[in-house]
């Protein structure tokens, strides 16, 4: 089996995980769960999803050097800021 | 391995990005135009003092008041802000008229002074009404205090 097919398979798994996480997020909303822990949990799911998209769909995960990181950093900085803001307002 | 970085792509981003953000700007402008009636005090323009205010604005422009003053923060920074002069002068058009009238023709030695424009009573009225109208525009709370 060559690399390309493996790449696609991996992305299919990633796709399923993304769908699954989205449903969880939705049900959290649907049940109108609230509070800091819940919010941060939902945020964490979103950040993981973002990292999966960046690493596998965009293909940054297999890079060496600087270009491996922009999406991670992009998720990290606003993620942190949002966490702080929610923490302070909880 | 070499990185692709082509002029064609750079060009496409320039044209695409510009068009995109200009359209967004137009969309926001469209929304703003819809909101302005709630904020820009156009009721005053359509009311009985409307013609006076219009005359006042022409006078404001034809004497280049903006060349020394600011109006809502825009203009020259040589003389006080006038967007809120009506409130600063105790909500009085008479005080505004009195001030404009009282300027000495030869200035004040050593100090900045507003010229004496020799306005007629009607013109003074118009200018004061114009400044009152501007002071009643909803400026999101600017300036921070009456000093302008």
């Amino acid at each position, binding site marked *: 089996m060559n690399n390309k097919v493996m790449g696609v398979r991996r992305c299919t798994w990633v796709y399923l995980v993304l769908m699954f996480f989205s449903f969880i997020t939705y049900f959290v909303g649907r049940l109108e769960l609230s509070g800091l822990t819940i919010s941060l949990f939902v945020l964490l799911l979103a950040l993981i999803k973002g990292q999966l998209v960046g690493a596998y769909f965009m293909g940054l995960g297999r890079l060496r050097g600087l270009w491996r990181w922009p999406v991670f950093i992009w998720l990290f900085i606003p993620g942190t800021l949002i966490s702080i803001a929610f923490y302070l307002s909880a | 391995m070499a990185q692709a*970085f082509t*002029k064609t792509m*750079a*060009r496409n*981003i*320039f044209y695409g*990005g*510009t068009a*995109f*953000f*200009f359209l967004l*700007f137009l969309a*926001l*402008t469209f929304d*703003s135009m819809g*909101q*302005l009636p709630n*904020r*820009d*005090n156009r009721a005053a*323009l359509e009311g009985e003092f409307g013609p006076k205010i*219009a005359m006042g604005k*022409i006078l*404001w*422009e*034809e*004497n*280049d*008041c*903006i*060349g*020394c003053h*600011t*109006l809502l*923060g825009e*203009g*020259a*920074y*040589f*003389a*006080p802000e006038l967007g809120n002069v009506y409130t600063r002068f105790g909500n009085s058009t008479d005080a505004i008229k009195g001030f404009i009238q009282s300027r000495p023709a*030869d*200035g*004040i*030695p*050593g*100090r*900045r*002074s507003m*010229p004496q*424009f020799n306005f007629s009573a009607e013109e003074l009225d118009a200018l004061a009404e114009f400044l009152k*109208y501007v002071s009643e*525009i909803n*400026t*999101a*709370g*600017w*300036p*921070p205090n009456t*000093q302008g």
Partner: protein
Amino acid sequence: MTYKSQSVAKLYFIAAIALFAAQILFGLILGLQYVMGDFLFPHIPFNAARMVHTNALIVWLLMAFMGAAYYLVPEESETELFSPLLAILMFWIFLVAAGLTVAGYLLVPYSTLAELTGNDLLPTMGREFLEQPTITKLGIVVVALAFLFNIGMTILKGRKTVINLVLLLGLTGLAVFFLFAFYNPTNVVLDKYFWWWVVHLWVEGVWELILGSILAFVLIKVTGVDREVIEKWLYIIIAMTLITGIIGTGHHYFWIGTPEYWQWWGSIFSAMEPIPFFMMTVFAFNMVNKRRREHPNRAATLWALGTAVMAFLGAGVWGFLHTLSPVNYYTHGSQITAAHGHMAFYGAYVMINLTIISYAMPLLRGRNAANSNKSQIWEMWSFWLMTIAMVFITLFLTGAGILQVYLQRVAENPQPFMVVQDQIALFYWLREIAGLMFFGGLVVYIASFFVGQDEPEATVAQS
């Protein structure tokens, strides 16, 4: 000079420099009036001097842009100008109109000028930077259209390079957005809203295309770096400029009666506006470092690098300083704005024009590539004098602005405008001194055109 018709640029450049001198002279008068309020009163009141100061600036920048276009378009298109005669004719019309307008500002009261020129028929006067009589504005439109026609036809019949197209796009945008100068409703909010379509979309929009293309042209010439590389960076930089700058107009819509969401849109996008300027700085230095040849005109290279740095500082950094709405709430319409305006205009637009003049003038005057060493040394001295003076002007105005904002708007007992002005007079004195230094630099600059004319051209030291 490769094409004969490029020589029309010389007229434009000379007139531009003359108006530059007038602008600075009136700047000094203004600076003095800030501290000696009755200076020249009532003969040249502050507002008249200020109109000359700002309008002369705009006109000379436009003249130099046109000169730059007449110089670089034939060379880029590899063909003679479509009509040199039209270019010369338009030059004189423009110059005479500008001269008459300035004379009008100085000789008669502004209201008389308005009456004489029939402002009541189509009132457009008396708005900041657009003080010109309506008839002058119409003249500007005619000149701009003829100019665009001339340039456009030249490009059409010749080679279409990126630099040409970007320049043409910038110049067309300049003409199009100027048309909003004719829209002047009684409603002050509407008036201001679209007034910014001229002012902001000029200086933080289409003018930057002109700036970028002139800079790219000079960099290609003095560094010998491959056109392909320079052109793609030009595209990226101007793309970033417009992406951030168009919505960035919102930073003028915080407090003029426009909806409050502009505070967010304006703050966020204008916070990004320094990025393209930073890219431009990196780009210019990179290209010069990667240069494939030593150009004997070192002064032009210095101006080009200076433009990149000072535009970043003036437009980028000093703009960012007061662009976020919570900050702008306190600084709006204060000396902070003046500080930013001075350095941004100097860094971005004055310097880019001096760059192209520095590159083109020796060629227009019959040199092969550059002026004599002596002349260049004078010119480089003027670069440093003017640039350092401008840094000081900006710093002093910033100091004045911070103090003004504090005393008038932040302090527990806010004080009236004029009381505050007295308290910050020291900064105004210092600014005036820095202004004199700038004027000195300008004198050296003008002198550089006359010294060392009989000496041989500068050559490149073999390395």
